[in-house]
């Protein structure tokens, strides 16, 4: 078991865990006991939700319904991914719903009523969103206005602008042959390509991990055993291929879903593997420490707010494409809170400095599953709100309890 030369990072006798398979299992169990729950609550929650709805209505886990579920998730998921960035720096943007609706309205009005090119219209909406994000950033860093208040004002103001530019008709229908509607409703990955993409992803995962392992071993640092890495990659491959196969029994894997997944992966890379992402976490953890380390704190805040607004805009466009219209209710109602709730349910802390891009993916699946399941049961939307609210309360409760437990066990 033991290596002749202890790795550079395994010398201290106080270290009780090992990096072999058994050590990994025992250290993950200890993490969970100490309150470092990771994605466990949300995954368990998803399984419970799936089981309950499947018992109540066997359509729930059918391929047809899951295809719908994934498409429903993508738009809110993109908005929620944006929320992850502001939460990481310990701020909030309550106006993502309004910004998404406003962006959809801008695009639809320019495209349909003024005959602009769709790409240009979307670009205009994106530029407006960037300006909104920058505005929040400047209000926070230059005027010290809490983002809670700034974005609450924005929620109302941009909703008003959305209504204003939609005008008396109140609704703009997007033509079905437009690229946006096609992308959001009809564009599916060919079955063979979906399997190839899944295989490529698993292979990429394995290669990246093997590369890390090789570099660490060369530097005389401990690393996960080969078997664990290969096992994880195989598990990932099987899970993805199965999921895609299951979706392919119906309409298949939507390009919109792939788009969302790619965004999540890119965001995850940016957060975990770049200096900018490290700075986000540092600002969220201890703003003063980040400033003294030479991090441009204002820039980090601005970039987080801009990304949030930009992703809200993209999510709004996807949502408009899915409904083939931009109207008075685009981005209103529960869009805002669903997006924020999804990030929190997925495990991104409201208190800053802790979170992951994957929390947007998992949390959105929970929210979308509840909405979808309750719709299948013909429950009124009133009950949907109640149940989503309860799930959010449970998620935040788990977060708070885990936070306290982490503090007791000396973890961040």
């Amino acid at each position, binding site marked *: 078991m033991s290596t002749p030369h202890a790795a550079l990072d395994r010398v201290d006798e106080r270290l009780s865990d090992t990096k072999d398979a058994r050590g990994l299992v025992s250290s993950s169990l200890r993490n969970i006991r100490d309150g470092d729950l990771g994605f466990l609550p949300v995954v368990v929650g998803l399984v419970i939700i799936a089981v309950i709805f499947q018992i109540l209505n066997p359509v729930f886990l059918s391929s047809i319904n899951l295809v719908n579920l994934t498409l429903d998730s993508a738009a809110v998921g993109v908005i929620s991914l944006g929320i992850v960035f502001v939460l990481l720096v310990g701020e909030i943007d309550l106006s993502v719903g309004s910004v998404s609706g406003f962006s959809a309205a801008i695009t639809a009005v320019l495209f349909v009523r003024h005959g602009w090119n769709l790409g240009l219209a979307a670009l205009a909406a994106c530029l407006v969103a960037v300006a909104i994000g920058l505005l929040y950033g400047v209000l926070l860093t230059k005027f010290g206005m809490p983002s809670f208040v700034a974005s609450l004002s924005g929620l109302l103001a941009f909703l008003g602008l959305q209504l204003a530019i939609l005008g008396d008709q109140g609704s703009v229908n997007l033509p079905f042959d437009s690229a946006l509607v096609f992308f959001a409703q009809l564009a599916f990955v060919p079955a063979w390509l979906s399997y190839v993409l899944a295989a490529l992803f698993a292979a990429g995962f394995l290669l990246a991990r093997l590369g890390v392992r090789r570099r660490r071993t060369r530097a005389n*640092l401990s690393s996960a055993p080969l078997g664990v890495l290969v096992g994880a990659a195989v598990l990932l491959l099987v899970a993805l291929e199965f999921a895609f196969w299951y979706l392919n029994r119906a309409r298949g894997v939507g390009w919109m879903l792939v788009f969302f997944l790619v965004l999540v992966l890119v965001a995850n890379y940016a957060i975990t593997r770049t200096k900018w992402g490290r700075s986000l976490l540092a600002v969220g953890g201890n703003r*003063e420490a980040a400033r003294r380390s030479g991090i441009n704190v204002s820039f980090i805040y601005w970039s987080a707010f801009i990304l949030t607004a930009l992703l809200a805009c993209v999510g709004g466009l996807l949502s408009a494409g899915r409904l083939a219209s931009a109207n008075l209710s685009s981005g209103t109602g529960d869009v805002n809170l669903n997006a924020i709730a999804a990030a929190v349910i997925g495990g991104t802390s409201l208190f800053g400095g802790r979170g992951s891009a994957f929390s947007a993916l998992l949390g959105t699946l929970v929210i979308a599953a509840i909405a979808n399941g309750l719709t299948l049961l013909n429950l009124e939307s009133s009950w949907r709100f109640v149940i989503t609210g309860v799930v959010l309360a449970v998620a935040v409760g788990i977060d708070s309890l885990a936070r306290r437990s982490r503090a007791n066990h*000396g*973890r961040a």
Partner: protein
Amino acid sequence: MSTAPGVDVRPASGSGQPLLSLSKITKSFGAVKALTDIDLQVNAGEVVALVGDNGAGKSTLVKTLSGVHAPDSGTFLFDGRPVHLTGPAAAIDLGIATVFQDLALCENLSVVDNLFLGRELSPFALDETTMEVKSWELLRSLSAKIPTVRIPIASLSGGQRQTVAIARSLLGDPRIIMLDEPTAALGVAQTAEVLGMIRRVSERGLGVIVISHNMEDVRQVADRVVVLRLGRNNGTFDARTVTTQTLIGAITGAEDHA
């Protein structure tokens, strides 16, 4: 002595001139004279303790040295050359690092993350392996007792956090390091650990300035003790021979050594 890469160890300057030399430094805030005609010398490889009662001007002096405040008058020689610090960044560029009392660590980030915060290697594809190796080499060279560098700062004790903060300031390759109350709120063993670390830092050829209220610690770790009282020098003592009684006398003004 093993050295970490990135931490350049310079020999004590052979010419015998002090690394840092202040003379007649004066600083006023409005009508209040915070510092009056302060003299201070720090040689390479020397630990200088700065002691004084509250309001004696220790913090103002440290802030002057770290570029936060510009002195009103007086000469500031670094390596024999007159310098004029325009801001904290200028002080760091010159090679004067400061570890403030609040340490300024991000509790949610790991030891490696904190050590390299703001100077990560390869910003668009973080080189975690090299950063971890360099962290280990640096911490080992300081005989720091950190079990693993991949745990968040929140998991560490006060002494370990102080260790990380000192190690981080060394990564910037400074010539002088200033520590503000490094042993405040530490237990016996942790205090000993941090004091040992301060000695090891000075053995690398760095000049160390330590602010402390604890006379035991001061006499244990310092070579010289500089006492400030009401913004003026009130004596410089050899830490090996001075008694706590004398130091307290100088701090409180019972004895005048100006």
